[in-house]
């Protein structure tokens, strides 16, 4: 092919960018947690594989929902950053959910929360 005039960095997926950022925070000496959507049922705002990264100073990037469950996820992220084992969170519309936060859209979503160690 002819001369490549310039080459860029476009095309890195959102999840790859989030992991890169999480590693950078870790190198700064911060504690870092990663939350990932692992299953969805019905209508849910973010597809399986979507990620949210959080650090111990409250920085966050990415998302695992339209915003309705981020608060609860960040709370759990704090626990895993403080040494708790990884945890599978289940958010739905049922009254029996351990989590009080429901999804306004009526779907159900499972989120895996783990520390970057």
């Amino acid at each position, binding site marked *: 092919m002819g001369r490549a*005039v310039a080459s860029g960095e476009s*095309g890195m997926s959102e999840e790859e960018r989030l992991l890169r950022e999480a590693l950078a925070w870790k190198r700064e000496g911060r504690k870092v947690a990663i939350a990932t959507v692992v299953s969805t049922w019905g209508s849910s705002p973010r597809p399986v594989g979507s990620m949210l990264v959080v650090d111990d100073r409250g920085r966050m990037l990415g998302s695992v929902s339209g915003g309705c469950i981020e608060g609860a996820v960040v709370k759990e992220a704090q626990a895993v950053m403080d040494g708790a084992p990884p945890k599978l969170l289940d958010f739905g519309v049922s009254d029996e959910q351990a989590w009080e936060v429901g999804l306004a859209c009526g779907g159900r979503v499972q989120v895996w929360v783990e520390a970057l160690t």
Partner: protein
Amino acid sequence: MKVALAERLLEARARGQTVCLLRFLATGEEALLVAGEQVIGAPLPEAVLDAAQRAQRYDRSTTVESEAGPVFIQVFNPPLRLVVVGAVHIAQALVPMASLAGYAVTVIDPRRGFATAERFPNVDLVDAWPDEAMESLAPDARTAVVTLTHDPKLDDPALDVALRSEAFYIGALGSKRTHARRLERLQALGHGPEALARIHGPAGLDIGAVTPAEIAISILAQMTQALRGRE
């Protein structure tokens, strides 16, 4: 997630390799596949390996059941690609929008002064002739091709190569009349009606777009429609 695993994952992706990250949700154990080969973690059960290969092929992260409980399979495939022919005004709007949507974008324009890094920061630029450049880029089923020059000398050779590829979207800018003449020329090159019907021309959903940014939105929307199968 272990830092070493995350680093290994990003290294492999930077080299353009496919990556599959597995998490056993009952135990917290993790494993990593690079280009189909396991590089981190305890040997995986056959059924889980098969599921990972399927997930990779369909580009779909998923959770499957296994003897060891649920396993989350997260796919990191090479990105979708967009090849834009014509480093023109509309391209300046389309390129950043497509990057944001996750496409690795390449802009082809052999004309002096068009495909410059000032006009197109952070994107792959090629100043070869479109036929040569397109052959080399080899569009596949995860590639969209959009021609924007209105110049048959530049657009036609690119469309000729695109039609012989599996590109999931082929769009050509230009009025209905321009497009009719374009189809006649491509027919003369040996493309039948079925092949020619693959070209979206004029490119873009009919949303009354006027400005370059609006036209870019209509094209990106039509690409999304073609990709996600709602046509």
